[in-house]
C-alpha cells in the first residue's frame, strides 16, 4: 500500500490530487489477500463513547422535529415491492 494518501473531498470540481504516476507503479503488489486477520474492534460501547456524546446535539434536534408517534410513523409505511 502506498505510504501516503491525501484525502480529496472536493469531487464536484474533479480536482483530485494529481499524484504522480510513480505512486501507482511502486506500490506493493498484493498478490494474495491480506491474511493478517487484524482484529476488528467489536461493537463494545467504549468504541463509540466519544462519537456518541458528539451526537447529543443531533439527537436533540431530531427529537424536536420528529413525529411523536413512532409506531404510527413506521406502521403507515407499506408498499408493494418494486420491479
Amino acid at each position: 500500500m502506498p505510504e501516503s494518501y491525501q484525502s480529496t473531498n472536493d469531487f464536484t470540481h474533479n480536482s483530485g490530487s494529481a499524484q504522480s504516476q510513480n505512486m501507482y507503479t511502486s506500490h506493493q503488489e498484493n498478490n494474495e489477500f491480506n491474511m493478517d486477520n487484524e482484529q476488528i474492534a467489536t461493537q463494545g460501547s467504549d468504541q463509540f463513547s466519544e462519537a456518541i456524546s458528539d451526537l447529543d446535539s443531533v439527537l436533540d434536534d431530531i427529537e424536536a422535529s420528529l413525529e411523536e408517534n413512532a409506531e404510527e410513523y413506521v406502521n403507515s409505511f407499506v408498499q408493494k415491492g418494486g420491479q
Partner: protein
Amino acid sequence: MPQLRDSTHSLEEPTSNELVGSRDITGINDGASDVNASTVDDTDSANDDNELSNRAHGLPFERIFGIETEYGVSVTGQRPDSDMLDASHVASVIFEPIVSQSRSTNTYIENGSRLYLDVGAHPEYATAEARTVTDAVRLDAAGENLMAALAHQAERALRERTGNEKLRVHMYKNNTDSQGNSFGCHENYLVRRHVRLNDLEQSFIPFLVTRQIFAGTGVIRAGQFQISQRADFLEDTISSATTRARPMINTRDEPHADSRMYRRLHVIVGDSNRSQKASWMKMMCAHLVLCMIEAQARGEDYRLTRFAMQKPGECARSISRDTSLSAQMTLISGMQVTAIDIQQGYCDAAGRFIARHYNDLAQDMRNDMIACVELWHQTLESLRQGNFSELSSWVDWVAKYQLIQSIKKRSENTQKLNANDATQGTSEGDGETSSTSSANNSQVNKSQTDESQTIKSQTGKSAVDARISQIDFAYHDIAHDDVIGALQKNGKITPIFTLTEIRAARHNPPSDTRAWLRGNFIQQARKNSVQWSADWTSITMLGNRERQAMTVHLIDPFEHSPNEEYDEFMGEILTSRKDDPMLPLI
C-alpha cells in the same frame, strides 16, 4: 397503461430477468427479441470486438452511467375511520402535476431524466445519461430534490381536500417498507461488448457483494442491525429465467449505431444512499472494476476472477449481518477471506490499472479515479481499525448505526440517572439506613426503572425500540428530512453539491451525452407549447391538424451534437402552431 409509453426503453429495468446476448444488429432494441445467454454464441472473434471497442468514441474507458431510484411513500396523521389514504392514493396525488402537464404518469423532464409512477405505487426517477459519476450523482440529487417538492405539494393538496392539517406526506429514498417489501436503487453502466458474460459474473459480482461495507445504508431487521438493506433480497445467480428471482445484475443490448459495441449492465444490488459521497464511491469503484474487467478481456492481468464466490447471495447476507466485518467467506478457490480483504484486492488492482493506463485516460476521469482509489484505501483502513467516527461523515450505515447506539446510550444514561436520584433521595432522609430498608428501597427503585425501560406499547415494543425503528426509516424521509437535516446542521454529514447546484441540475441536462438533445427538445417544446413525447432513444413532436407527427431517433448515448435532422426538427418546433397551453411543472 400510459398513453405515450414506448417499448424501447433502453435505460430502464428490463421486463424480464433473462440474461441477454441478442445478436440483433439492426440497432433497434426490442424486448421481445432478447435471447437467453446460454443460446447465444458469445464467441465473436475477440479481435473484431476489441477493434470496435477501441474505436468507440476514441477515448478508452469512457462509459455512460445512470441511476434509477424507486421511492416509497406514506402518509401519517390520518383521522381514524375518516381519511382513508394509502400509498397508491398518495402517489397519484403526488403525480397530479405531472399528469396534468404530460397526460401520463410516465414522462421525461427538462434535464433529460425520466419521471414515472412504477407498479406498487413507487414514484421513480431515472437519471439522464451521464458521462461521469459526478454528473450521475448530481442528477440523482436533483431527482431527490424534485421528489421532495412533489411530496410537499401533495401534502398541501391533501390537507386542503381533507381539511386535516395534521396530515404529513412522507417520501422515502430507501429499499424496504415496514412490512419487508423491497424496492430498488438500480445502476446502469455501459460495458464494452467484448467482455464475456461469464467473466462479468466471476469478476464483478464479488465486488458488488462486498461493496456494502462502505455503500450499505443499514437497516434493523428482526431486532438486528444489518449493513445492507438489499442483501436479504438477492439470489445467488447472475441470471434466472423465472420472474420471481432477482439476479444481482442483468444485461441488455444497448441500441447503438453498431450494436456490437456495448451492453447495458443493470445492477440491482445497491442500496439507496442518502450520502452523495457514498453514491459517488459506490459507482466510481464499480466503474474502475468494470474498466479492469474490460482490460482483462483484452489480456491485461488483474486476476479478478480469483475473487469468485460459490454462493454470492449467501455471502452478501452474512456480510450484512456482521458489523465487526470479520466474517469469513469461502471462495471457489477454497480461500477464506473477509469482505475487507476482497475490497482491498480490487482496490490494489485499481491502483495498478491507473498506473498502467495513466496516459490513456482523459484528465478529469483520471483525477476522479485517483481520488477514488485514495479514499478507497483510507476507507478500508478505517474499516479495519474500526475507526467509525471517520466513516460516519459519509458512510450511511455507519452514520445510522452511531445514531442508534447514541439513542440506546442516552436511554441507559437516563435510567441510571433516575436510579441514582431515587436511591439518593431515600438515603438523605436517614442518617443511617439499615441494610434491609436500603435493600428494599433499591428493589423498589430497580423495579421503577425497569418499568420505564419496559413501558411497552400495545405491540410490545419498548419506547426506545420504537424510536430507533422510526429513525431507521426517517433517515430516508426526504419530505420530512429531520434526521439528515440534523446531521447536516451539526456538520456530521457533508453533501457534495450545494442546493444551488442541485436546483440547476433539475433543469439542465448534461451537455456531453444524448440527454442534452432530449432535454433541449423538451425545453423548447414546452416553451413553444408543442405537444411531445419521448423515450430514451427518440423524441417526437405529436401530430395535429396541421402536420404529421415527427420523430428523431437518438441512438448513440454518447452523441450530444445536433445533426442536420435534429436542427430541422427543432426548427419545426419554433415555427409550429401552438398546441394546448401547458402548465409549468413544479
